[in-house]
């Protein structure tokens, strides 16, 4: 019986259940087992799916005040602000319309040239529009949650882009929502191509930079990179379609004592404030399979130490 209450049911005197220490041992072991299963073997997806489904009503309820605030905020936005944003959108549209007009012609020309040169056709990109619900509250990673899941046909490992560049990659798919790991996460690496020089490399996430950034590793200190170079996806990885902007080079540190330069980049996507995103199907399913290795005629084995 708790101290100082008028509880009328006395606690059982002899049957107290397992002791607190044994409970601690049992549940700690279970937690450690789950961690190993999650980190090393990646087999906990069914448990996550069950718990996520059970939690969904509470999550939905917790999202309502935020949605109401967003809606209310949008409702009371000043007319002038709406006008300025419309003006900006019109200017952007005008700037893009010239290029958009050329695209049809260029696509046709490209298709003909490819046919002429007998190259493979470019793959069409199919996407699914989604909305970012919230930043994942886990402070040890950089992830966001989007409002499309298995039910909407989101696939694992799909690239996610926003209006200005690559935002990240889908790393976990639940029934109605999915998790997107941002390009600035420490575990993310994305193959890029320097749009100015055509040099391919890999950009790694660098969350320690202010606001998050990317880093080009293993580029020689004499390599041809300049501040302001645009890095786009190279398309050699089988995940990202080629040509999507990823980052811009912000700062290059060339050190005398190191063979490599430290190259810091800023992501092009709005990693902190993206709202509307596109989930693109990974291109891996469309890539033709590698041809089977032909058996190579091996030279007859040479006997060692035969003659001496």
């Amino acid at each position, binding site marked *: 019986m708790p101290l100082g*209450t008028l509880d009328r049911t006395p606690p059982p005197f002899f049957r107290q259940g397992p002791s607190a220490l044994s409970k601690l041992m049992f549940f700690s072991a279970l937690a450690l087992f789950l961690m190993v299963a999650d980190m090393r073997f990646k087999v906990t997806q069914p448990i996550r799916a069950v718990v996520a489904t059970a939690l969904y009503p509470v999550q939905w309820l*917790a999202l309502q005040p935020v949605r109401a605030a967003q809606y209310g905020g949008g409702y009371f936005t000043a007319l002038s602000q709406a006008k300025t944003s419309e003006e900006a959108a019109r200017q952007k549209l005008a700037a893009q319309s010239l290029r958009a007009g050329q695209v049809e012609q260029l696509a046709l020309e490209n298709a003909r040239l490819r046919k002429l040169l007998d190259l493979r056709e470019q793959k069409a990109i199919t996407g699914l529009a989604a909305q970012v619900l919230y930043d994942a509250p886990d402070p*040890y990673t950089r992830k966001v949650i989007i409002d499309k899941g298995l039910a909407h046909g989101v696939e694992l490992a799909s690239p996610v882009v926003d209006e200005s560049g690559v935002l990240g990659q889908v790393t976990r798919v639940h029934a109605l929502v999915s*998790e997107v790991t941002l390009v600035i996460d420490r575990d993310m690496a994305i193959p890029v191509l320097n749009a100015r020089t055509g040099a391919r490399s890999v950009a790694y996430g660098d969350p320690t930079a202010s606001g998050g950034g990317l880093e080009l590793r293993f580029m020689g200190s004499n390599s041809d990179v300049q501040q302001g170079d645009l890095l786009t996806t190279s398309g050699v990885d089988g995940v990202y379609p080629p040509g999507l902007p990823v980052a811009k080079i912000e700062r290059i540190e060339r050190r005398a004592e190191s063979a490599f330069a430290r190259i810091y980049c800023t992501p092009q996507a709005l990693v902190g404030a993206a709202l509307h995103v596109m989930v693109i199907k990974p291109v891996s399913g469309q890539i033709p399979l590698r041809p089977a290795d032909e058996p190579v005629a091996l030279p007859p084995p040479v006997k060692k130490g035969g003659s001496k």
Partner: protein
Amino acid sequence: MIMPSGQQLLLPANPFFIWTSLIIALLLEMLPLGRVPWMPDFLALVLVFWNVHQPQRVGIGLAFMFGLGMDVHQSALLGQHALAYTALSFFATMIHRRLLWFTVPSQALQVLPMFAVAHGVEIIIRMSSGGIFPGWTLLLAPLAESMLWPVVSVMLLAPQRRAPNPDENRPL
């Protein structure tokens, strides 16, 4: 009955009220506020409170289940919060007989190391499994939790402080 002098006898806690308070704490945790490392963990606070005041009803097993829910919601490593809450609940069970003999402010001081240990467990697990260091503001979280202890004590004990025999002078 042996109890601290000058304290009021409390009514038994309603199980419905216990569950409601736990669900509301879960709701507070799930508010999409982004990554705020210093945010106090309301769910841990309420779990520790009920662990201290009603150890028969809220125990280590329930803390583990709520921890699992938090892991899935935060898309953290599965088992990270579960382990932290299990440890927290164990410490709360260990000190629950002693703690209630102190005044509420000194109780807040005594629960501070427990919350610090729980956050320490989480940060050790995540840093060893290759996470990003969330920043030094994380140190404020156990402080904030222990400062909220008196508030939670007043709020969650209020229904038990009602009069056992309400009349016209004491409607509540």
